[in-house]
């Protein structure tokens, strides 16, 4: 993407494309660990969805289904907050440090 020169920028450092942070794949920040979703243990409490700072918990048809690794930074809050007896989110080692699809 071509970046604007200072003369092309709107007055006041405003962002005239609100919502364009979706193009910032925060999943590239992950380093070494990623959450793994174990669906059979999930009690659908939505704690992970509520606490995730990057909206990376994917919900389909009213149920937590998986994790969006394009935006998941691997912070581990979801695994920490998961209250089910058998954890439904655990942190696992990750070999490839790129976001899914290798975009980042």
């Amino acid at each position, binding site marked *: 993407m071509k*970046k*604007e*020169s*200072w*003369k092309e*920028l*709107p*007055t*006041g*450092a*405003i*962002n*005239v494309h*609100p919502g364009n*942070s979706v193009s910032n794949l925060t999943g590239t920040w992950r380093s070494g660990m990623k959450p793994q979703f174990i669906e059979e243990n999930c009690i659908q409490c939505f704690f992970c969805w509520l606490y995730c700072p990057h909206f990376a918990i994917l919900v389909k048809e009213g149920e937590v289904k998986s994790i969006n690794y394009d935006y998941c930074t691997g912070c581990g809050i979801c695994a920490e907050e998961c209250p089910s007896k058998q954890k439904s989110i655990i942190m696992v080692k990750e070999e490839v440090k790129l976001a899914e699809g290798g975009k980042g």
Partner: protein
Amino acid sequence: MKTLKPLNGNQTIAEAARQIDPDVIAAYPITPSTAIVESIAQFRADGLITGEFVCPESEHSAMSVCIGAAAGGGRVMTATSSQGLALMWEMLYIAAGLRLPIVAAIANRALSAPINIHGDHSDTMGARDSGWIQIYSENCQEAYDNFIQAFRIAEHPDVRTPVLVGLDGFIISHSTEVIQVEDDEEVKKFIGEYKPAYSLLDTSRKITVGPIDFTDYYFEHKRSQLEGIENSPAIIEEVGKEFGKKFGRAYGYFEEYRMNDAEVAIVVMSSAAGTSKDAIDELRQEGMRIGLLKPRVFRPFPDKKIAEALKRLKAVAVLDRSSSPGAFGAPLFTEIRSALYDSAERPKIVNYVYGLGGRDIKVEHFREVAEKLDSIRKTGKVEEAYGYLNLREQRKGEYHGEIKRPGPDGR
């Protein structure tokens, strides 16, 4: 109807605010600017203004409210002093960075410690790199005139930069003068309608204000911010002239007093410039060719114009009402000495710090400066580049240990 009214500095600002009637006024009262906020609150209670008056829990919040209201497209003002301005610090930079044309009246006051409520320029001089335009006033009339012009300058499409108007704490803020108050409608006409560059409330053009920049955009945005203050000199000049045409009192970047055939000059801002005029009149009568240059606009600094006005002189004394610890002189001095660097001919130049914490500066102190200037003119030599006026110094031969003070009986 235009009238002559006896008003003190704070009341003149409040009077101008009443006439302008901004959309939002957010302020937290602090000495010596308290009466500005108090009067505005009274105007609001009496139904004389229609704008929102917000009294938040601190100056940091007051400036935050101003920023939010201005980002919402409103015409916005505040007033503060000293520690209040210091508490606004991080928000000052944000107001400037977002190019929000907020106008602030600052009753200049010393900064703690030690705590002091009286007038000096430490507060606004400390904010000199915050990106705000700074205009200083010599008396109540100038405070009124500058405050009205500040809205026109700040809101100009090429500028869109916040402006602060300084008036010396107590010396101006609490001294009553008879000032010319212009007609309400004429002031409103002069200010004109405000058209914001952007507004958060404009749903037809959705924007985000204040998002994060990484290494790839911050530099460009900061350069783009400078454009506003760099465009401002032409606008400040234009507004000052137009104000003169309409109301009979024209303004420029600085005032020159008896400078025509001057050999030496004093440079001093704000209320002390008034006193210096009396000293200069006396000295002129005694045959000394001395003049005054009174800077009005400190940011943006009119470097070329000041250098042009001073370069042919033999000696110049720059008087600062603040200090800049560790720098090679106080703020006004370093600017002026630097401005003269490119001049092939330039005067000898000295710096005096005066009036910290409201310490008086009188005609006799300006005479002291004039004496020094005269000796530099004659010898071409500067013995001491930095000095202080009306400061108690240790006298030669005095015992440094125990100081004898009079007892309770006066002996």
